[in-house]
């Protein structure tokens, strides 16, 4: 038997299956969230089941998390995004006390105790300017592939000021910088720095306690990770697969609940 955690984010649905009784990751699945969220959940879950060579009946307990957790009607229970992040990050890095999650449309952070239990949290303001969707829009404006943004910004030699607090105005600033002849590399670094600053100010309201982990989609962007390290003036822990940390946390909670 096994347990599962399913995280339904704004961009992707993610599933993690754990061996019941011991915290061993059996498999993962991921699918883009289109119009039909339940379809995305099903695809991610099936992928994980298939990889683990398990049938649905062999999944004893499912915990859902994420912005659209209602898309997992078969879940036995749910957990907040921050609570799942805290558990997942703490499992990967037991020294973690602060987890920052920057996803497609939301930035959030949680503080956890030595057991991985969330003790405080913060969520960004309503605008998505500090999240991944903003960076996607800027990649389009710069005519650069999203996956190129990180490596390019690491080659920058300066970070021109970027004051924008909103996607619309930021695009306007990017256009101005292009017309001024600023290099794409430097503009991208400025964008990463702006997003990092916005999120760091959010995390400061929570209080930063070491060690700090960065998870969520933007943690895959090396340029953004670098901006966060410089902004926080400390090293940060980044898991190999940062997109799955929420689902992992949910799966760990499923294992706990399943054990009673």
């Amino acid at each position: 038997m096994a347990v599962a955690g399913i995280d339904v984010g704004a961009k992707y649905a993610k599933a993690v299956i754990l061996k019941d009784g011991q915290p061993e990751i059996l498999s993962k699945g991921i699918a883009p969230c289109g119009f039909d969220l339940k379809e995305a959940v099903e695809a991610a879950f099936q992928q994980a089941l298939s990889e683990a060579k398990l049938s649905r009946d062999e999944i004893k307990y499912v915990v859902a998390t994420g912005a659209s957790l209602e898309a997992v009607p078969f879940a036995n229970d749910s957990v907040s995004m921050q609570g799942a992040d805290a558990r997942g990050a703490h499992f990967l890095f037991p020294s973690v006390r602060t987890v920052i999650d920057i996803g497609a449309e939301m930035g959030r952070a949680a503080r956890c105790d030595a057991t991985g239990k969330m003790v405080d949290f913060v969520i960004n303001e309503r605008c998505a300017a500090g999240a991944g969707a903003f960076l996607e829009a800027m990649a389009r404006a710069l005519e650069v592939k999203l996956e190129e943004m990180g490596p390019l910004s690491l080659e920058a030699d300066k970070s021109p000021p970027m004051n924008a607090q909103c996607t619309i105005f930021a695009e306007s600033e990017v256009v101005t910088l292009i017309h001024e002849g600023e290099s794409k590399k430097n503009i991208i670094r400025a964008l990463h720095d702006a997003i990092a600053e916005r999120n760091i100010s959010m995390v400061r309201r929570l209080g930063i306690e070491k060690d700090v982990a960065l998870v969520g989609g933007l943690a895959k962007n090396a340029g953004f990770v670098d901006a966060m390290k410089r902004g926080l003036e400390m090293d940060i822990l980044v898991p190999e697969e940062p997109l799955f940390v929420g689902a992992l946390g949910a799966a760990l909670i499923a294992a706990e609940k399943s054990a009673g």
Partner: protein
Amino acid sequence: MAEVRWKSEPLKCWNQAKALRLKYYEDYAKAHERGGIRWAGSAWAFSAVPEGLGTDVWSLTGEPYGASVAWNKDFAAQCHEAAQAKGYARDLCAYMRNYWGSILLNKYVFGGEWPKPDFQWTSHTCCSHAKWYQVASELEGGVPTFSIDGSIGPYDELDENRLNYLVDQMQEGIEWMEKVTGRKYNDELLIQAVHNECNATSLWAEICTLNKAVPAPLDEKTMYSLYVFGTLMKHRKECVDFYRVLRDEVQERVEKQIAAVATERFRVITDTQPPWAFLSIFRYMESKGTVSVGSLYTFGLIGIWEVKPDGTWGPRTPPKEGSIKTREQALRTIADWTASRPEWQHFYSPERKTEMLKRIVKEWKVDGVMLHYNRGCEGLTVGIAENKLGLKKAGIPVMSFEGNMGDEREFDPERTKTEIDTFLEILGAR
């Protein structure tokens, strides 16, 4: 849905409360038909003082009126549009914009045309109040207005000079009202109104004190419909009588362990005005086994408190009937009484609010605090970030949410529910 843990039943005096509130707004609207006069002003005003003009004097207090408008989302939207079209920015006090909008639309939210007051009697403690009634007067074609400046500092620093500052303004205000209304002022009516106000606000504090019980006999959502009489008519006998009935019923609920919320497992408090159009968030919390047992706002805007010999908060002892003999004594009594109002104190320092919140957490057995960054009220929201830090430092779980007491455009119910879910998870209520 959370497990039912307690027996619960509706308040027996609920319909009496509803009728009393509606009568208040109707009395004001029909005052002229009945040969009386009416005044408008802030709920913070020294409302006992105009009572000396006669027994046919009716008032309309602006903040609860603004809250009533907020509850009616369609009418509130019309008011905001009217105020904004007139040039008043949307980041101003939301109650004030609801009030001005009603004047501009010439509509009373309780039906009929806007009932223009004969004069305005108000006070200002926060930055909006004086301008509120100055602008209202202009919009209504020049209604005579008298405003008392309440900037006397916190109660523990009150001295004779500061008290005199309030009393002298009220003395001057009485002469002003005599001129404006052409009526002779009756000190006996003032004295009775001061006794009424002291009794009513002490009774409300006593009712709130009863909510220290587990399970809580009252929940905050219900308290909103009950504390309001202290903002409408704290100086009137009807208010005292109703609060006595309510106190007795709440006492009985405590004795019989009748809960306001049958699922009560976790207890929280809020700090200031809620987003009035979205009180359903309290029902949402109930479904998760959580009751809000009150707030500094519901306890301390109307309730007048004192520290009892055992160090806990309890109702301030009102002056004995017959102990006030003169106008001067009555004014000094009500000035001192009002200056001790908890909600006045934190205008002078956020630490004062933090300390009061910490006291409530301890004495009311509260598990966590929910702070409202209320974009509709600068006065009561300023310093919340510091309150949050102070509470965290004391080891008290705390969450904040953004909203607006009177403008639904600035409150996101789904986002707030998500934040509440996360907070309740920390409390262990999920």
